[in-house]
């Protein structure tokens, strides 16, 4: 594939987009793992939400 004399600009545009989108995906995935971990720790210590207690009771 020949991108012509301005290939640097095209490659840079795609590289920036991939970098930002990868950052968004990493942020969402890591944040989910972090929230699940903290929730798990709290539930292990016996702390449950009122709504969950009432639905289970």
């Amino acid at each position, binding site marked *: *594939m*020949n*991108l*012509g*004399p*301005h*290939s640097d*600009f*095209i490659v*840079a*545009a*795609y590289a*920036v*987009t991939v970098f*930002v*989108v990868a*950052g*968004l*995906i990493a*942020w*969402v*995935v890591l*944040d*989910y793992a972090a*929230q*699940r971990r*903290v*929730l798990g720790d*709290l539930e292990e*210590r016996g*702390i*449950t*939400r*009122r*709504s969950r207690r009432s639905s289970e009771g």
Partner: protein
Amino acid sequence: MAVIDLANPTRFLALVNRLLPWLVGATAVLFVLGLYRAIGAPDDYQQGATVKIMFLHVPSAWLGMFGWIVMSVAALGTLVWRHPLADVAGKAAAPLGAAFTFICLITGSLWGRPTWGTYWVWDARLTSMLVLLLLYLGVLALYWTAEDPGRGARAAAILSLVGAVNLPIIKFSVDWWNTLHQPASIFRMGGSTIDPSILTPLFIMAGAFTLLFVTLHLAAMRNEILRRRVRTMQLMQAQALAEAGA
């Protein structure tokens, strides 16, 4: 499941957990197809291969504005109806909209240098897009710095509604003022001026980016709901400790 049931965060989470794998798959498939068609698209007779930047620039511009529309609707939900998921939706959309606006500005600048001979001009389209990015950063600052999440959410909702004024300015700036940026060439009276060999991959890429936005938005909303549960449980733990110590 009725639509009203989605107001319940637990039911919403169950729906998101079922939807996300399908959305991730559909997004990946559409990106593979879109990139394949984008790579195979012919060069523009004037711009040459730099037209390939359009497949990133235009969808990210649309999603930068779409993100603010989502935040504005969510702001109405927060301020008027006090919908439990409205603020969650607004807060989750802000970083996504900011990121796509940033991509739009950077790719536009990289497209502008070989096409116009400059990375940046202070014309109405470029400036109003930069204002959109600054508004996004303002909303994020309100969410991240407010000590009381409720007050931060209301302030962000008000800024979201006020900032919506910028959307028609962005859209019609190329018609209202004399700009270096080209006028509308895709959605316009009389049809698109772009050849189908370039327009088709552009629409596929726009679909892929839109699915990516929806997927990330739902995932970020799920994270925000979990974060609020964590906060509630931490407050309950602190309260229990305080009562035990009293």
